[in-house]
């Protein structure tokens, strides 16, 4: 208790130095919390942008379909798969789709694109196609409706209700099939690729167009809890994967995002490492300055019978108090800042990560681990850093300290 009191009071001997050390540690912790929250927010935004916008959290498709989107590789008996999905209570909804590459032409221009045949009602719970609608009407199931991205519409120089001709190859025979549509809606997802290359028609129309009868290319799944989708061992994936059909998580069919998430974790580690290193140097510097100012006092204390262990205890307690105060302050600053950015967002403008356009602002994520793990790491790092000056202080030779000769010139040895 005496050493705790002594340690506490020692911190007020040079308030400016103590405050600077506290600010260094607390600002580092706050920076780490905000950075981690920002990275988590960025990852979530990417997940939302790519996965929840269209690709879904889980997919069931022919195991070779994703290699080159060969339209012959279909789920020919989708009802059996859908019956399997319906038995999984973790699944919120599902949506069967046709995906075909084809030519999309207007009276003025033509382009290649990816045409999705979708069930408009089911897509409402699985994707955000309807949310991306900026003009016209969403699909109703009627024939000849087509939605396309804003950039594609601009390229084809079409407006609502203009005529569009789709040309695709039929399944099996490869014969060309062509149909006329009327542009019923224009979409804006954000990512450039989606707005330039994607078009959407009704599922039944698509099946007729490619002569696939009931077959679909993929069934997209959305879970009640998005975190479940990342569990590769989930029963949905296990039970529906058989033969040529595979059921996989978005982690597997969106490897670029998975890589980005892994990189972002690495970035947090690097950032944390740099900040922890700076904190360590700051603590070592501060404690050494404090010890050098008190060498005579340590000499007196040791003359009275204070053991080297007592001295180590005292210096470590000083470091611990500084760290605890810093963590409380840094945690508060980090929490308030991160909470504010989680509501109002961190303005980042528009940029692309691995071809994924991210725009607007990132809403930071406030996570419990940021306030448990990071302060724990800071405490451990600080105590480890404090050990060096503490050992130095414990080895101060009383006779030398009392002579005021502590400059390493003394060849005497006592303790």
């Amino acid at each position, binding site marked *: 208790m005496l050493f705790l009191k002594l340690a506490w009071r020692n911190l007020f001997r040079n308030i400016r130095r103590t405050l600077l050390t506290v600010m260094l540690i607390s600002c580092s912790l706050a920076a780490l919390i905000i950075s981690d929250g920002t990275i988590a927010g960025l990852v979530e935004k990417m997940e939302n942008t790519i996965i929840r916008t269209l690709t879904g959290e889980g997919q069931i498709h022919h195991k070779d379909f994703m290699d080159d989107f060969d339209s012959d590789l279909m789920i020919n008996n989708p009802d059996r798969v859908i019956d399997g999905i319906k038995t999984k209570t973790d699944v919120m909804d599902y949506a069967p789709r046709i995906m075909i590459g084809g030519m999309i032409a207007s009276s003025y221009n033509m382009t290649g694109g990816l045409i999705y045949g979708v069930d408009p009602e089911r897509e409402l719970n699985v994707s955000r196609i309807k949310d991306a609608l900026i003009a016209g009407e969403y699909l109703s199931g009627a024939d000849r409706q087509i939605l396309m991205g804003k950039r594609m519409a601009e390229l084809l120089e079409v407006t609502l209700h203009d005529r569009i001709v789709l040309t695709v190859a039929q399944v099996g025979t490869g014969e060309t099939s062509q149909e006329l549509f009327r542009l019923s809606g224009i979409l804006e997802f954000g990512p450039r690729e989606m707005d330039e290359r994607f078009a959407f028609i009704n599922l039944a129309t698509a099946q007729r167009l490619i002569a696939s009868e009931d077959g679909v290319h993929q069934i997209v799944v959305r879970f009640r809890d998005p975190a479940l989708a990342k569990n590769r061992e989930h029963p949905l994936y296990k039970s529906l994967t058989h033969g040529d059909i595979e059921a996989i998580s978005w982690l597997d069919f969106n490897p670029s995002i998975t890589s980005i998430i892994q990189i972002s974790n690495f970035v947090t580690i690097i950032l944390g490492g740099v900040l922890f290193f700076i904190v360590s140097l700051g603590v070592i510097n501060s404690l050494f300055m404090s010890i050098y100012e008190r060498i005579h006092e340590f000499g007196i204390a040791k003359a009275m*019978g204070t*053991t080297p262990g007592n001295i180590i205890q005292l210096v470590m307690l000083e470091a611990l108090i500084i760290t605890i105060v810093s963590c409380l302050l840094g945690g508060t600053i980090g929490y308030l800042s991160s909470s504010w950015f989680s509501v109002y967002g961190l303005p980042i403008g528009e940029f692309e990560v691995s071809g994924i356009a991210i725009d607007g602002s990132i809403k930071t994520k406030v996570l419990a681990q940021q306030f448990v793990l990071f302060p724990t790491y800071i405490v451990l790092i600080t105590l480890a850093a404090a050990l060096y000056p503490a050992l130095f202080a414990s080895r101060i030779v009383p006779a030398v300290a*009392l002579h005021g000769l502590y400059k390493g010139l003394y060849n005497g040895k006592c303790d």
Partner: protein
Amino acid sequence: MENVIETRDLCRYFGDEDVRVKALDHVSVEITRGEFTAIIGPSGSGKTTLLHLVGGLDNPTAGQVLLSSTNIADMSSAALSDFRRDHIGFVFQAYNLIPVLSASENIDYIMLLQGVAATERQHRVKEMLALVGLEGLGNRRPGHLSGGQQQRVAVARAMASNPDLILADEPTANLDSATGIALLDIMRDLNRNHGMTFVFSTHDQKIMDRAQRLIHLEDGQVVRDKSK
């Protein structure tokens, strides 16, 4: 009389082979219980070095410092700390006290290290403050005490652990004459009435006048050892 501490052929050399300074050269002295002794001599004669070696603050180059037949020069670091805590009280020239602790806490500190129970510590702190005439000033920190009062707290602290020997290194050097005399009178009373053993290192004539024994050092050697 019982020896409190004894040195045998005690040597302390500084520097290397080329530039060797013999701070102490084969010094043998015996300090018996209840002495009020002054080690005197010119600057650089080895007074403080002898005090440090006797107090276990430094290790000798050669020779022995014996406490009850135990050579403290052979003790480990931790054992030396315990030895100082339990057997030796120190009063230094200045900046004696821990500045962030009050007078009472400074006296309490050493007893805490000894593991004395809280109630006994409180009683002893009051007793020590009364002995040095500082009743009512226990809550003041050193910065709010005069130099003389600080030295009196240092004496009280040195006595608090009930040591065999109190070593005082120029205790009056930073005090004015009247304050120095008052402090010496306190120490002399403690010596006479409580049997405390004091050894001073000093240039101060006032201490020499009051000392029962004068050990005169020159060039690291005892040139005179005279009891009054």
